[in-house]
């Protein structure tokens, strides 16, 4: 008895109990759907972040305090020792091959009259920031070197801040209250969007010196280094490390290229994919138990049929295959529906977040659902194959 025949027989048996079959495969459907959906979300997130980071500008290096990718010291979090003098050193020594820009960051509440915007990221950056990081100004301008030197209270604001504080009215030239001090809005930047509700547009840029003065910070959050030539990125990284080492120890700073940052992110999302996929896979196993349960019921219900088939010449392996293929057909059907639903929902969600359904996630979840059918179908199938034809024929 060949596979195609057995499969069509299985399909007939499945269709004979439509509601029951549907409920049986629901577990698999939900499992496969969640696998596809979660992977598509994480992949979309990764694609988005990658694009964002790449969008910051090519040839970019980040100097950040502390050590990334190494073992942490037993003392826990290292104190930040990165100061503006480090940035100045890099600027002088690397002036020929790179642009260097220091940045600090605080969160604060902004006000415009009665309108309040809380938890806004305040970036204190240097006037050369747009040369290092690509940001687009949609109205007005970025601040100048002279404004930074004279610690002018000017601000370039993100679109969310604009909306929260000015709604539809003009923001340029207006004053806003940043943690108690008045700043003049001189520019608005283009939207960068949000990921999982983290709004990158709820931020403002003010001169570095002004930020230091207002918030009393002398430790830097980041020094951006933009190599002038993509060929020299690694060399610039080496030089920067050597220069910083003169004052700082190894574990007090990290110089990362954009490539390294991307690979760090891809490591994080891989772990995320694995964890979320694993959780979804558990629901596939639960679905498998459902299939096993219904197959055992089916074997009992069809005991007489099994006996008759044996009397008519079915070999034990024919009976085993019949039930095994029925289980696999059930689970694959569930997998198929799950894939369609998963892709559909990912598509709908894709209108709000970036989602991407990689082919491997489809292959993986379908393969896994078939495997579930085999694993959980074997026991009922063997039970059917072992039935004694006489007892089976007499079974009422």
């Amino acid at each position, binding site marked *: 008895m060949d596979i195609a025949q057995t499969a069509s027989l299985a399909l007939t048996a499945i269709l004979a109990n439509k509601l029951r079959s549907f409920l049986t495969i629901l577990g698999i459907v939900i499992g496969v759907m969640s696998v596809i959906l979660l992977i598509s979300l994480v992949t979309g997130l990764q694609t988005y972040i990658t694009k964002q980071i790449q969008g910051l500008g090519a040839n970019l290096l980040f100097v950040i305090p502390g050590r990334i990718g190494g073992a942490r010291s037993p003392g826990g979090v290292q104190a930040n020792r990165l100061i503006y003098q480090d940035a100045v050193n890099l600027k002088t020594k690397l002036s020929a091959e790179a642009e260097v820009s220091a940045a600090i960051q605080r969160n604060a509440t902004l006000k415009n009259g009665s309108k309040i915007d809380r938890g806004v990221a305040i970036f204190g950056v240097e006037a050369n920031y747009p040369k290092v990081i690509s940001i687009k100004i949609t109205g007005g301008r970025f601040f100048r070197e002279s404004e930074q030197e004279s610690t002018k209270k000017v601000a370039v604001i993100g679109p969310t801040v604009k909306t929260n504080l000015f709604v539809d009215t003009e923001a340029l030239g207006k004053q806003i209250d940043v943690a108690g001090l008045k700043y003049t809005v001189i520019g608005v930047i283009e939207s960068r969007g949000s990921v999982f509700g983290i709004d990158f547009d709820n931020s403002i840029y003010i001169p570095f010196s002004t930020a230091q003065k207002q918030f009393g910070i002398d430790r830097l959050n980041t020094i951006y280094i933009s190599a002038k030539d993509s060929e020299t990125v690694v060399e610039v990284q080496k030089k920067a490390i050597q220069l910083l080492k003169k004052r700082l120890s190894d574990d007090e700073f990290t110089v990362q290229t954009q490539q390294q940052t991307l690979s760090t992110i891809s490591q994080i999302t891989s772990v995320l994919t694995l964890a979320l996929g694993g959780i979804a896979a558990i629901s596939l196993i639960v679905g498998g138990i459902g299939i096993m349960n219904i197959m055992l019921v089916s074997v009992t219900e069809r005991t007489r049929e099994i006996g008759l088939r044996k009397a008519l010449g079915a*070999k034990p392996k024919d009976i085993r295959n019949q039930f095994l293929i029925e289980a696999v057909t059930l689970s694959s059907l569930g997998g198929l529906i799950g894939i369609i639903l998963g892709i559909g929902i990912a598509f709908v969600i894709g209108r709000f977040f970036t989602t991407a359904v990689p082919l491997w996630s489809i292959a993986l979840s379908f393969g896994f659902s078939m495997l579930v059918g085999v694993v959980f179908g074997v026991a009922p199938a063997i039970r059917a194959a072992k039935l004694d034809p006489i007892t089976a024929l007499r079974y009422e």
Partner: protein
Amino acid sequence: MNIVSLKNVNKIYQTGEVSFQALKNINLEVKIGDFLAIIGASGSGKSTMMNIIGLLDHPTSGSYILDMQDTSHLSQDNLAALRNKKIGFIFQSFNLLPRTAALEQVALPLIYAGVPKLERANRAREILEQVDLGEKLNSNPNQLSGGQQQRVAIARSLINNPQIILADEPTGNLDTKSGMEIMKIFNNLHSEGKTIIMITHEENIAQHAKRRIRIKDGEITG
């Protein structure tokens, strides 16, 4: 020539401490073309005998030679193949598959014989026409009368051109008229040279057979 030959066959059922001897020293020979009725009351051992002849069960001791082949040491797969090719079963309760068209019921043994689909359908149609069911090819069992269902079962038993037709109370679930129809088919099959072994407890049904043996308490009494 003998098609079935039982020699000193005993069958003992052992349930825990209790043992029950269903067949006692049975010797039976059936020649090709014979029409034999095995007559006995319920519990006489006639069903056990039928199961052994049909290779659904094996004797506790003694030997069963089917078509000159000793069946004592055959594997499950070999037994299945022999049942498929050499024996056509007809049951008291028809034993048709639910929700399955007559044509597919009759073709079922051919699936296990590895016959291709088109040939299966052709042969099944032919045999169904022989039992006057040419109009009912696509009917499910619940659309057929008892007599028609049993005729589907007879067609199914004949499809693989077996050497023995083994019928267990073939008229037990039928009214007299339908029963007579079935017996008429059996007589025709017999006149065509088929070997038929029929088990029954009804004397008037047994009268249709060419030869009769009686069984009581696991022993052949005459």
